[in-house]
């Protein structure tokens, strides 16, 4: 066993000893991955796992480095990029990936990618014509 492996195993036993917490975090992430297009909130997620929403928030952040909300937004933006590339309209994309208002979708998209949804789409479509 390499020194690296021994060190990883040591850290693992110190910070990831609670298998039950890990299962909950993984369960929440899977749930978001499969239901990102629906109306999700912490109350709903915590009810599934019989834990308080504050505990869930802390747990998720501890294991993934971001909050469930941030993870959900990143997921939706990633999915919306796929839809825009496939030629879906901006409005339809917005609702298909689970956002409820066009304004917040456009703002978030621009913040995360540096471009508005329509700029992104035009760029992708003109690229595929080259």
């Amino acid at each position, binding site marked *: 066993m390499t020194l690296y492996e021994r060190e*990883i195993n040591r850290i693992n036993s110190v910070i990831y000893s609670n298998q039950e917490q890990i299962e909950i975090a*993984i369960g929440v992430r899977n749930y978001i991955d499969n239901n990102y297009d629906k109306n999700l909130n912490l109350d709903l997620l915590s009810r599934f796992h019989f834990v308080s929403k504050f505990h869930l928030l802390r747990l998720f952040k501890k294991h993934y480095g971001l909050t469930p909300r941030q993870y959900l937004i990143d997921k939706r933006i990633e999915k919306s990029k796929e839809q825009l590339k496939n030629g879906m309209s901006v409005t339809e994309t917005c609702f298909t990936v689970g956002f409820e208002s066009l304004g917040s979708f456009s703002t978030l998209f621009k913040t995360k990618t540096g471009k508005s949804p329509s700029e992104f789409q035009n760029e992708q479509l003109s690229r595929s014509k080259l």
Partner: protein
Amino acid sequence: MKVTLISIPVRDQEKAVKFYTEILGFKIKKDKPLEGGNRWVTLVSSEWQDGPELLLEPGPNHFEPCKVYQDALMEVGMPYTQFDVNSVDAEYERLTKLGVEFSVKPSKMGTWKYAVFNDTCGNNIELVEVI
């Protein structure tokens, strides 16, 4: 400012290009000659070709401390660079069949799975899958 490039020190650029494209599956993005037979050669992942570029830089041959650091990491099995994959198990199977040597077989830590292999150019590379 934007992050668009990460570099990997390699002993032999020719060999590295072969390993990273033919075995790992990266694609050459830029390849231009520099002085003394060195090249500025960057790669991208085939499924994310507008993503960050990976520079195969011949540092260890020209700057001793770079070589010393690389050797020290290799000796203790420490990866300095990691790549994300959809399935660590599937990549482990695929790469093992192609003769790639793993110092850490697929293992779990918290919410991720990882494995470490030797890139034959002086580096340990870690594959990571978030679960």
